[in-house]
């Protein structure tokens, strides 16, 4: 018989790094960046610091494995810093986390990610993470190299030294490992950075990718999002085993007290109802330690069979429509956009909030027959792989976007130069895998996302419709200019008429079509005015005031009035606008 051995958590992950986002050189770069940035953002948020993050990624040589480059990633933040004693734990030990199972909407949860990044660097380049840290209490920063001791799942800090760092506090982490760099597309680094910028309006980001220049993006919000306190777990989200384990945290208290203080939505009334569902009253007064497994089974069953109030939605946080509207402008020149933040709701007994931002950009994703660019977020972390299996993608595909003026092949993403950003925040997001790439699609969740999308679609369609009308009118005007002369010339040739008849007919035609074109002109002006008025309103809502914006609002609104009442007046306004 072969010998049964026990392996450490680190050993397991070292052999199965593909499960946590290191399945290819391409993903390795993105996942490392993601883990480092997620940690920085979470740390800043917890300390109430407005984050300033610097990212630098470059190729520094060829990789040790085939077809890879040696890639260096540096992420530096202004967060609270890590106590030097914790450095080895944070970067070199699996499942060492301050956030595990707390029921909060933080980005990181289990404490796997950054240790996996260290392991990957160690496996491919024989060196773990180079870290520098400084907390406010330290005069000098501490730096060193953290490796994972895979056999024992512990981190080792090597070459520790004190250095000067002109920063109040913060962490700088540097990895060098085998990878491949992709900037654009679904799995691209830029796509990740764009996404992170979008859902973190309070983030100031500087980045330098490869040989490109440094890019600086300022924050558009000075409010550090406050992570809502975790609420107590709802008993309907538990399995029997979890239920029993949960009870051991409460020591010797009585069952009724445990049920009321260990869970949310359990009241005295609920306790009464439990008894009607088969829980014997005598058990309620017993201490937990006196309960047998069989008792737990009965208690659990009675609790599951009783209807309870849905869990509270207080534990979720949103970016908010205003912040999202400002943040989206940071991704490029926006033509128009619409944002929707839904009210928090309950899906599958878990609080969830869905936010959607749809935008058309002027110089981005300009191919009209390409699918829209989709940015998916779970707890404000961009999801970049395996989009086809994700609840968000399913929801988008289930909406009929043709109703909102977009082109959409049957059962697919709509087409056009748009960015669709959908963010889901929940303390308990059900992912399909440990690398958190896709959200599992339950019917309730897909329906909630769908509703948000449809609301955003309605807002978007008013823009698109106006543009279509505008284009239609313009086409009509062009028609007159193009076809009228051809018509007269052909008629003159067929009838062998002279120049003077031609002139007369041309004048007559001009008068005729002039009447048509006057009407068309007036309609066009009206459409123009309405659209610009709408755009101005949007801009006002965002608080973005350009130098000319006030003047143009006046003209635009004047146009609306004029076009609505008297066509002649519109012409005058149009003329004066031209003169301006």
């Amino acid at each position, binding site marked *: 018989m072969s010998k049964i051995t026990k392996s450490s958590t680190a050993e397991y992950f070292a052999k199965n790094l593909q499960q946590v986002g290191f399945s290819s050189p391409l993903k390795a770069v993105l996942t490392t960046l993601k883990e480092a940035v997620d940690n920085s953002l979470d740390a800043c948020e917890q300390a109430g610091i407005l984050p300033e993050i610097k990212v630098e990624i470059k190729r520094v040589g060829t990789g040790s494995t085939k077809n890879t480059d040696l890639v260096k990633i540096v992420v530096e933040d202004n967060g609270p810093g890590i106590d030097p004693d914790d450095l080895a734990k944070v970067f070199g030990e699996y499942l060492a986390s301050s956030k595990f199972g707390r029921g909060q909407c933080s980005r990181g949860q289990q404490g796997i990610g950054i240790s996996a990044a260290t392991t990957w660097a160690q496996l491919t380049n024989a060196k773990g993470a180079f870290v520098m840290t400084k907390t406010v209490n330290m005069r000098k920063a501490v730096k060193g190299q953290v490796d994972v001791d895979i056999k024992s799942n512990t981190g080792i800090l090597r070459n520790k030294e004190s250095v000067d760092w002109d920063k109040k506090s913060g962490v700088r982490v540097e990895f060098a490992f085998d990878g491949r760099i992709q900037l654009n597309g679904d799995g691209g680094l830029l796509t990740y950075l764009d996404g992170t910028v979008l859902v973190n309006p309070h983030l100031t980001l500087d980045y330098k990718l490869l040989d490109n220049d440094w890019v600086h993006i300022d924050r558009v919000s000075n409010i550090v999002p406050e992570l809502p306190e975790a609420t107590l777990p709802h008993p309907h989200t538990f399995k029997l085993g979890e239920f029993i384990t949960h009870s051991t945290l409460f020591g010797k208290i009585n069952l009724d007290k445990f049920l009321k203080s260990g869970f949310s939505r359990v009241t005295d009334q609920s306790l009464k109802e439990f008894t009607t569902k088969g829980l014997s009253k005598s058990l309620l007064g017993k201490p937990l330690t006196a309960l047998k497994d069989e008792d737990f089974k009965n208690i659990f069953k009675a609790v599951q069979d009783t209807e309870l109030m849905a869990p509270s939605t207080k534990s979720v946080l949103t970016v908010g429509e205003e912040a999202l509207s400002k943040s989206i402008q940071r991704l490029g020149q926006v033509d128009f956009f619409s944002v929707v933040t839904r009210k928090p709701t309950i899906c599958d007994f878990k609080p969830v909030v869905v936010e959607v931002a749809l935008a058309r950009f002027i110089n981005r994703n300009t191919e009209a027959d390409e699918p829209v660019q989709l940015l998916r977020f779970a707890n404000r972390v961009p999801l970049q792989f395996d989009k086809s299996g994700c609840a968000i993608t399913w929801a988008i595909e289930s909406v009929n976007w043709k109703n909102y003026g977009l082109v959409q092949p049957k059962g697919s993403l709509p087409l056009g130069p748009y960015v669709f950003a959908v963010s889901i925040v929940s303390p308990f997001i059900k992912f399909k895998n440990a690398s958190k790439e896709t959200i599992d699609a339950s019917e309730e969740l897909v329906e909630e996302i769908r509703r948000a999308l449809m609301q955003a679609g309605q807002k978007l369609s008013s823009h698109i419709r106006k543009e279509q009308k505008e284009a239609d009118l313009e086409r009509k005007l062009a028609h*007159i200019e193009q076809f009228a002369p051809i018509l007269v010339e*052909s008629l003159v040739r067929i009838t062998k008429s002279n120049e003077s008849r031609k002139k007369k007919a041309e004048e*007559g035609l001009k008068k005729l079509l002039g009447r048509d074109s006057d009407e068309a002109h007036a309609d066009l002006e009206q459409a123009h005015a309405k659209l610009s008025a709408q755009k101005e309103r949007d801009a006002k809502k965002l608080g973005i005031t350009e130098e000319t914006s006030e003047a143009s609002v006046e003209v635009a609104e004047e146009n609306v009035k004029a076009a609505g009442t008297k066509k002649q007046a519109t012409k005058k306004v149009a003329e004066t606008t031209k003169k301006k």
Partner: protein
Amino acid sequence: MAKLIKIREHNIDIPKEAKVIAEKMLSDLEKSKRPVLEAVKTSLDNSFYNPKVGFLAPGDKVVRTELNVSSVQKLARVVFMLEILLRNLDIGSVNTKRELYYICKGLIKGEKKYKPLDFEDQNESDAIIDFIGDMLRVYREELNCFANDRGGQTYSQQLVVTETLADGDRATVDLSTLGTAPYQPKNKPQSLKLKVKKKVDFCLIVESEGTANTLQTMGFTKRNNCILMGAQGVPSNAVRGWSKLIQDELEVPMYFFGDLDAYTLQNIFRTLKAGSAASLIRNADFSAPEVKFLGVLPEDVKKYDLPHYKVKESDPAEARALKKAKDALENDPFFLDKKNKGLADILRWLIKEKIRCEQQSFFSVDPKDPIKTEKIILEKIKNKSYV
């Protein structure tokens, strides 16, 4: 070169008529009045059936196109195409619709300002040509625009055809000299003169060109003093004009032999006998009202125990044909007229029974006798088993 072919005795002088229309448009424009073009409305709701003449004729409805922002493109295209057609008539040049499409492309390429007129595909230019025909109430052939018409392959031991060619020469074809090769009138049946060497007893038009050829090969025209023609599906203008010519010049009984189904009765036979709603202007010269429906008749199915099929309503084409048949019984003036009650009854029978039976099923009656189909056809003619 002289005008190629005279299609009919028609008192319209097309170039003159076109100039009148152009003159009216121009003078309207001079007066700042919106010019209007009117064309015959070619649709079923403007079709009238007079049992005395036997074909679908146009009613009073017209399609009016008035100049405005939306129609200016169409009017410019109509006048542009009209000029090309008038030039063709003037110099005696002929073209197909496809060729005209490319002629337009060539002219547009040579002149930058014509660019907006450009046709995206042939459907667009075809629609303009059709509109001009309906507007002037003339056939496309009269505008020197010919089609490569299919069908009409004809066999006979008695028929002699004389064709007047464009240059005035004459060509004479004795069909008995052609063996199993057919004579085909193509797109100009009206320029032909017919003569028979011996009295012809009947003319048989077979829906399937293949079956017509089988009958010929097995000696049908040798044993019978007749004219045998293959229609090759829905009759083209050539088949329709050719049938009309045979009917009028030779005054022989005419029979149509085809499948028993709604499509054949409605689209193929009705078009051959009375023309179609889409070709209201030409029906007078392109239909043979005397032609009888020889079969397959509903009674033949029973009498000869013919193999037949259930109409598959899951098949979109067959379901459409059935729906069209129901519409026809309600709206088609041809089937509504009591003169054609017998044909309407067959249509009703088909809708009720939901079966179809093919012309070739006669070959199942006596599989060992290669001329059994011929025998049945003759027997049916003799017994007046037709509608």
